[in-house]
């Protein structure tokens, strides 16, 4: 068994919260640059240029890419041969979020009592933590500060098996159409297909961690991603909904087996400020 100090987890989370908030991923920057070349709307082109300029300023000045520094969504892939010492793992993650959001001057957006008092917890805790046990003796920590403008446009549909592939395409295109400019397009569209209701939603969120330049390795799924992307970009919504051909940069779908009676489809939208950073301990 390999021992990992809880304090190392705290430091990693604190650092990743900040890095993710200030530095847009290279894959997204390249996709925005490419979209700037192909966008037909002059206003859309202009906006894409401003988003790239925003990313440059954020990195240089260590200013958050977006004032909505999000809910801290933390993924832990815990090697089964690791052993966390010196404290509770979840407490360590929470402390990392507290530290990272304070040190980075990130906005604290979490409220307790969501349907009544809605009191700000003032340190952006608690985070949302997803854990997975994996082979090996390493601990992979991923932090995704998830803004609510796009998160609010999420959907889950329990389709009928007979709805099939076309049912999925229609659902996603309709969801993006209804969302319009609200989720801050150009988007990355995370899809979770199969499993159960909650598993599909988690797959959709995890799909957003995949590079926008990488299609699903399964050719059938990659084909579905490509077709949805083309249809979504045919909607005309464009950058920030001002009209144009760049409504989404990528569709990332993750698929798993499901029940004979089910076809769960979860949609998790990611704004252009697609923030996630990871490290391995």
């Amino acid at each position, binding site marked *: 068994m390999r021992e990992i100090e809880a304090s190392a987890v705290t430091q990693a989370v604190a650092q990743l919260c900040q890095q993710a908030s200030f530095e847009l991923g290279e894959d997204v920057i390249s996709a925005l640059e490419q979209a700037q070349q192909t966008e*037909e*709307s002059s*206003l*859309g082109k202009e*906006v894409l240029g*401003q*988003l790239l*300029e*925003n*990313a440059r*300023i*954020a990195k240089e*000045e*260590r*200013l*958050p*890419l*977006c*004032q*909505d*520094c999000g809910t801290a969504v933390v993924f832990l892939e815990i090697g089964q041969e690791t052993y966390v010492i010196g404290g509770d793992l979840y407490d360590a993650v929470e402390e990392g979020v507290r530290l990272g959001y304070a040190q980075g*001057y*990130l*906005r*604290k*957006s979490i409220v307790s009592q969501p349907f009544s008092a*809605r009191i*700000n917890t*003032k340190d952006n805790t608690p985070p949302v933590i997803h854990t997975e046990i994996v082979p090996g003796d390493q601990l992979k920590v991923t932090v995704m500060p998830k*803004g609510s*403008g796009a998160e*609010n446009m999420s959907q889950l549909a329990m389709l009928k098996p007979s709805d099939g592939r076309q049912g999925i395409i229609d659902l996603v295109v309709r969801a993006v159409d209804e969302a*319009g*400019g*609200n989720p*801050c397009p150009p988007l990355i569209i995370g899809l979770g297909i199969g499993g159960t209701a909650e598993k599909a939603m988690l797959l959709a969120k995890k799909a957003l961690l995949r590079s926008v330049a990488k299609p699903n390795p399964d050719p059938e799924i990659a084909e579905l991603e490509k077709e949805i992307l*083309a*249809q979504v970009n*045919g*909607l*005309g*919504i*464009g950058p*920030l*909904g*001002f*009209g*144009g*051909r760049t409504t989404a940069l990528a569709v990332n779908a993750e698929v798993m087996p499901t029940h004979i009676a089910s076809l769960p489809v979860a949609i998790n939208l990611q*704004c*252009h*400020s697609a923030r996630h950073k990871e490290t391995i301990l």
Partner: protein
Amino acid sequence: MINITSPIEAEVVEKLTVGTRVLISGVIYTARDATHRRLVQALDRGDKLPFDLNGQTLYYMGPSPARPNQVIGSAGPTTSGRMDIYTPRLIAAGIRAMIGKGKRSPEVKKAIQKYKAVYLATIGGAGALLAQSIEQVEVIAYEDLGTEAILRLNVENFPAIVANDIYGEDLFYQGKAKYQRRE
């Protein structure tokens, strides 16, 4: 491109047609969800408001905290649609312009036409860029709301685009119709 000064004179909105780029200078006030609820409650009760709404501009924004050497942190717009339920009331009470992101409800569009106001969209998710146009910040009310407190901002050439005008036009509708295509 039109340069406008806020507070905004009534006749200025006549020139602000959908798609026009504007650069705003002067004073604007921030207001998000909780702030809107309080402002409308204050109007309902006939209480004194934290500032005179007449001709003013609301910016749907809650910034990230400023570092010690900064005026403000990241400062981009939030989704305007969540304010729709309160907006007609505030327009009727004197608000002349709103800055945010995303489309508005039919009720808001009607109020914009009826009371001669304007909805300006700015660049969602470009908070670092937009912060560069903000020169001074002062908390004027509802400090307990944290990032949702009302801030008075002095802005210089703050960029936006006319999204809903007094003529009933809509940038989001027009833009989409122009670029919509079936594969």
